[in-house]
């Protein structure tokens, strides 16, 4: 069957970044990566991550890049200081 040779053979060394091209197992793994990244994983999912994904090179790479980008967003994208007069302006409007 064509379907058998289509995609599954690449499972071990190629992980599509997008869910559409992924097998069910890969989808689950990518979902768990996101849950761990966002600190939303259950203890079981966290355990699965530690056992199966943390030491698997392709997943490790995806996780490392995602984690770094998340940290950079947090550290580099909070750079618009509040105008000094804003709080006073709000408070004066409240007392009107």
């Amino acid at each position, binding site marked *: 069957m064509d379907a058998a040779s289509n995609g599954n053979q690449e499972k071990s060394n190629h992980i599509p970044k997008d869910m559409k*091209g992924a097998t069910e197992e890969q989808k689950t793994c990518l979902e768990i990566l996101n849950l761990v990244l966002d600190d939303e994983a259950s203890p079981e999912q966290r355990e699965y991550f530690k056992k199966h994904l943390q030491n698997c090179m392709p997943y490790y*790479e995806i996780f490392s890049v995602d984690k*770094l980008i998340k940290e950079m967003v947090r550290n580099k*994208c909070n750079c*618009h*200081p509040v105008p000094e007069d*804003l*709080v006073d302006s*709000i408070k004066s*409007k409240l007392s009107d």
Partner: protein
Amino acid sequence: MAEYKGKSYSKKQKEAIFDNEFLPHINSMYNFAYRLTFDEDDAKDLVQDTYLKAFRFIESFEQGTNAKAWLFRILKNSFINDFRKKSKEPAKVDYQEVETYYNSDDIDQAITTDLRIEAVQDMIGDEISNALNSLDVDFRTVIILCDLEGFKYDEMAKILDIPIGTVRSRLHRARNLLKEKLRSYASKMGYKN
């Protein structure tokens, strides 16, 4: 918010809630407003409107619940309902339409490209910030709420009025688009994938 019947606070209590629970979030609120509007005056107006509304409807805020999420929800709604109508921005972007577009096969092809950690490490803040700003507002919003402000999925679902499953898929999609943008910056910096 809708199901909560409301409290009766004294004037003094209202002022205390406002000062102690609402105002401490003004930095995050302004940063969010700026990243939605890209204009200092508009961001100021949006934050001011949000705080005035928060005070007016303070009795529907239950003390002890998440004030920051409550304020972000008001700001997001103000942006969609009031601000976008007034601004030059053309028709309101339809979430569903955007998601359908980005879920199409065409865009998936482009997203499967790789991005190496060395390339990201060499980026200074500007690339990340510009890449975030270049995303469509709905995708930009989920990244800001999750990665910048640290909201949990269930809080984001309430702020955005969408199911948790949609939060997760939109976030996943947003991250892929962000990576795609960063990958194109990486190519310009001379990194080969």
